[in-house]
């Protein structure tokens, strides 16, 4: 036991003292923020430019009802354009509305493929135009239709309140919950790879440096492996704690600056436009945000995050250690051996990202039970607050059982692999090492 703690200490101190640790601790949050904003920015700017579409062969009602006031598409009803010369006339595409009324399918000619988004917009516009036309043909005047659509769009919003165990009705916000779940899922996903790879590289280093043999003549291979895994776990927790502190500091500072600005702006607006009550609007929005953030059960989220971070890490770290122990100097070998380990992690991430808005779907429930994916997927369900306790307990128990099993198995492979040089072990051999008696 004393020896394990020595190994843990060494693994921890050499890594924390390393410059790359400090660098990654301070750079990763910045990179992540840049990544989030960057992808949001890209998503915002990657929207198609305004498509100018020439419409020909109008059966009669579209020219009156097709709305063209959009940033996405503009329709021009023209006569001198056909499916060949639209480019020369300055149009991106030409929409031909002539067809058999029973088929209800039109043809759009374009030089480049029309994106799915743009196609949706056009189809919706055509539907709306047809609806308007149908209503008008049943006697409703166009100006009435227009005024109705103006007041009816975005007239209502829904505020979801959920009954808590104490019987208090609580305001929840599914979007915020999903976002928190998604971010913590991503964070676990990333850290699992980062620290798993760190374990693997550490084991490879010991093997290729040939220090492994010196070490196993002093300590048991299992102690060596566990010491490394636990030491790196401590590094991971330190890094997470530093990030948490950093984030809190940053958000306190930024919110202090922001709210000051907001207050000033609100004050100015009040002076300039007292009638519009802008400051009340701002204050309301800020208040709403704080109640939503307050509605999240942070203690549960943080506690579960710590558990699933550690559990997921322990589950995979020993597998990474086993892989590291059977690799020789060639990093190419690592690639092919790592695949079966990285696949379930990536699979978990895919389940999380595709089901984040339906935390109770069957896929999410199952994936949050199975230890291979549960650390990532369960974090997507936790912030919604309605994971039954028995599901949470089951998932946690399975994860604990899972990492005991993987550690036991990895220990067997590691013990043999760490002293094997020359050739790469095959899966069959590793399987044999696992199940032979010591």
């Amino acid at each position, binding site marked *: 036991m004393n*020896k394990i703690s020595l190994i843990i200490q060494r693994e921890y101190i050499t890594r924390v003292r390393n410059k790359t640790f400090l660098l990654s601790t301070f750079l990763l949050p910045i990179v992540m923020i840049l990544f989030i904003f960057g992808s949001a920015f890209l998503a915002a700017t990657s929207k198609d430019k305004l498509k100018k579409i020439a419409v020909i062969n109008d059966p009669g009602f579209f020219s009156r009802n097709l709305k063209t006031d959009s940033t996405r598409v503009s329709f021009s009803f023209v006569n001198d354009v056909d499916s060949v010369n639209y480019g020369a006339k300055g149009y991106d595409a030409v929409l031909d509305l002539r067809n058999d009324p029973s088929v209800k399918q039109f043809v759009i000619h374009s030089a480049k493929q029309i994106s799915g988004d743009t196609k949706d917009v056009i189809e919706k516009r055509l539907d709306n135009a047809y609806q308007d036309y149908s209503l008008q043909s049943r006697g409703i005047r166009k100006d009435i239709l227009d005024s109705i659509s103006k007041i009816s769009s975005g007239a209502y919003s829904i505020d979801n309140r959920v009954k808590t165990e104490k019987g208090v009705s609580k305001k929840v916000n599914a979007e915020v919950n999903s976002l928190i779940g998604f971010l913590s899922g991503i964070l676990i996903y990333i850290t699992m790879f980062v620290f798993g790879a760190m374990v693997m590289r550490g084991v490879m280093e010991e093997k290729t*440096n040939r*220090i492994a043999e010196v070490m196993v003549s002093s300590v048991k291979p299992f102690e060596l492996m566990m010491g490394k895994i636990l030491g790196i776990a401590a590094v991971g927790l330190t890094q997470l704690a530093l990030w948490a502190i950093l984030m809190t500091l940053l958000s306190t500072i930024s919110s202090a600056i922001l709210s000051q600005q907001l207050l000033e702006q609100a004050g100015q607006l009040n002076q300039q436009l007292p009638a519009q009550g802008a400051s009340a609007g701002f204050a309301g929005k800020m208040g709403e945000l704080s109640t939503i953030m307050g509605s999240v059960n942070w203690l549960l989220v943080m506690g579960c995050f710590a558990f699933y971070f550690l559990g997921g890490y322990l589950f995979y770290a020993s597998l990474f250690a086993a892989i590291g122990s059977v690799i020789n100097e060639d990093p190419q070998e690592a690639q092919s051996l790592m695949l079966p380990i990285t696949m379930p992690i990536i699979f978990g991430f895919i389940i999380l990202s595709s089901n984040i808005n339906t935390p109770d779907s069957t896929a999410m429930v199952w994936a949050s039970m199975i230890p291979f994916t549960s650390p990532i997927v369960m974090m997507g369900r936790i912030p919604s607050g309605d994971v039954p306790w028995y599901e949470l307990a089951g998932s946690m128990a399975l994860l604990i059982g899972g990492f005991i099993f993987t550690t036991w198995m990895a220990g067997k492979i590691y013990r043999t692999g760490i002293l094997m040089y020359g050739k790469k072990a095959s899966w069959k051999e590793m399987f044999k090492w696992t199940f032979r008696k*010591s």
Partner: protein
Amino acid sequence: MNILELQNLRKYFANQKAVDDISFQIKEGSIFGLLGPNGAGKTTLLRMITGIFYPDEGNIIFNGRKFDPINDIRYIGYMPEEKGLYKKMKIGEQALYLGRLKGLSKTEAMQKVKEWFEKFEMQSWWNKKVEDLSKGMQQKLQFVTTVLHEPKLIILDEPFSGLDPVNANLIKEEIYALAKKGCTIIFSTHRMGEVEEICDQIVLINKGKKILDGTVKEIKNQYKENIFQLGAETNALHLATFIFEVIRHQPEKLLLKLQHDATPNDVLKHFINQNIQVHSFNEVLPSLNEIFIKLVEGTPEARQFEKS
């Protein structure tokens, strides 16, 4: 007293008998040479003695009791053939760490490391990293970390490979000094010159089996071929006799092989009777290298022997 006794040790791997029924004893305080060509099973044997592997069959008796790796490991220092250290770790910390893993307390380890660093004039290296050291310096550090915890049994696998003569001598002196203090040293190598010079007792293994066991002198006597070297000025006329055969004839030196009923004195008489001045006369024992090549030749591994 024997510090180590191996009794019918066997270790089979899936496709080979790495160690196949090997027994021998090592006396406390002796320098013992474990010899064998590459792939003979030396490393496997050493890994069993250091508790890294368990033997499939047979017993290891350490210090009079059955070998118990967990507790006995602190009395053993092992320096493997492939030297290994943490490249990014500072030298002083590394030595401390490896010493403490062997069971030394922090203060003990610190004191021992300082002593050894002083002895090898390594004090200035303390804060350097292993990757900054030359291969010879790394070897010295490795040796220090092996003997730091004052083991009773020190196992050195090819300790001189990569060392220049000055540093090799330094370590050789330390090996003698440790043996004098009562440490037992197992010395695994395939360089016969080193063995002849250092070892009291040797065992030769090949293909997992023991093929020789004894002191250097015993073995040489066992394999001697009655060859003598005579220093005298002779010509072909002086050599007509049935007592010996001339193997090599140089103007002032003769290499003779005695017929087996002849004695060295017969040879001397032969020359003295002819009134030839004999400057020197001595028996030429085969070198270990010759014995081993003779013994293992013909087996595929034999070709990997290195000349001393």
